[in-house]
């Protein structure tokens, strides 16, 4: 990844699109969320749920591929989706830490999905009206997927939260463990704020009230509450990640790095 905007990549300057760094954020969010979610494959509590979670992971991977390809195009240095996914190192990834957190138990993963899908849906919804037509098209397709992911997570949150004593305990623990990491989704961000002011991008900070309303409604319906406390770990957008991230990356990248360009 480069932090500089794509200045004069070729003879004809491209029309003003968003900088690469802006597109890489949602791309990395989706990619890492997909990789983490895929770890449920063959491990879900039920065969039907196994397929559901794998479907969601594949949706996220599809979003990541489109966004990474678009970012590579904006950058104009010939990096394709594979180069961006498999040949960058940990500090170059700008996903929020929320999506790299270990899966924990099922309730824990559902809490992650609930918070992330609610955010993604809003971000894609706004971005579908963005001035960058390619980004808008990617977002317009993804918003339907995120809407379904949110529905799936909300469905399970309600059933676990309002289920047995044990399921309630686990769902509440999942929500509490993941909650602090949601704040970084909406952290003040000069780049996004500038792009939002220019009508090119979305400022995530503006999404929080609506996100909170959605999430709070689901939690309340499920007999749960928004956790208290103001610990808000941050840094993902600047390449600072949790200790869990390097293992995830290693697993995701090792094949491509051992056999560059391998296909099957």
């Amino acid at each position: 990844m480069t932090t500089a905007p794509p200045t004069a990549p070729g003879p004809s300057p491209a029309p003003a699109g968003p900088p690469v760094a802006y597109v890489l954020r949602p791309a990395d969010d989706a990619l890492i969320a997909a990789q983490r979610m895929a770890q449920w494959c063959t491990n879900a509590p039920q065969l039907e749920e196994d397929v559901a979670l794998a479907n969601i992971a594949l949706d996220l991977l599809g979003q990541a591929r489109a966004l990474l390809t678009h970012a590579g195009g904006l950058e104009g240095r010939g990096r394709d989706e594979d180069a961006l996914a498999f040949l960058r190192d940990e500090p170059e990834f700008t996903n929020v830490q929320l999506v790299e957190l270990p899966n924990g138990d099922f309730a824990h993963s559902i809490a992650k999905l609930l918070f992330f899908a609610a955010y993604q849906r809003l971000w894609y919804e706004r971005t579908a009206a963005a001035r960058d037509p390619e980004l808008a098209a990617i977002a317009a397709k993804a918003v339907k997927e995120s809407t379904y992911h949110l529905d799936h997570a909300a469905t399970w949150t309600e059933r676990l939260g309002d289920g047995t004593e044990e399921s309630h305990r686990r769902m509440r623990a999942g929500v509490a463990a993941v909650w602090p990491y949601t704040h970084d989704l909406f952290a003040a961000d000069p780049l996004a704020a500038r792009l939002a002011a220019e009508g090119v991008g979305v400022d995530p900070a503006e999404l929080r009230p609506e996100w909170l309303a959605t999430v709070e409604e689901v939690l309340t319906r499920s007999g749960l509450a928004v956790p208290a406390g103001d610990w808000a770990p941050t840094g993902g957008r600047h390449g600072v990640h949790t200790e869990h991230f390097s293992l995830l990356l290693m697993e995701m990248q090792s094949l491509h790095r051992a056999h560059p360009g391998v296909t099957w």
Partner: protein
Amino acid sequence: MSEHDWPLWEVFVRARRGLAHLHAGSLHAPDAHLALRNARDLFTRRGEGVSLWVVPADAVTASSPDEKDPFFDPAADKPYRHPTFFALPEGVEHL
């Protein structure tokens, strides 16, 4: 564990408008809401449908294999039940 906990549901998929819902298979789910979602993920992930029904399997009353002969065999030798013995009047096109 789960087979005892989660009831069985029969899934019906309508491929497109104008067609009937056809039985596609069955699945386990804890309730109707999740049965519908599981059906979406299991039976329409390759664009197979525009509408889904899920029905609790124990709500289906089925004919028994033991009754196969008295149920179905008597129809085998009654060709006159097929509407093939009518001569169509000339000029009738849409029959």
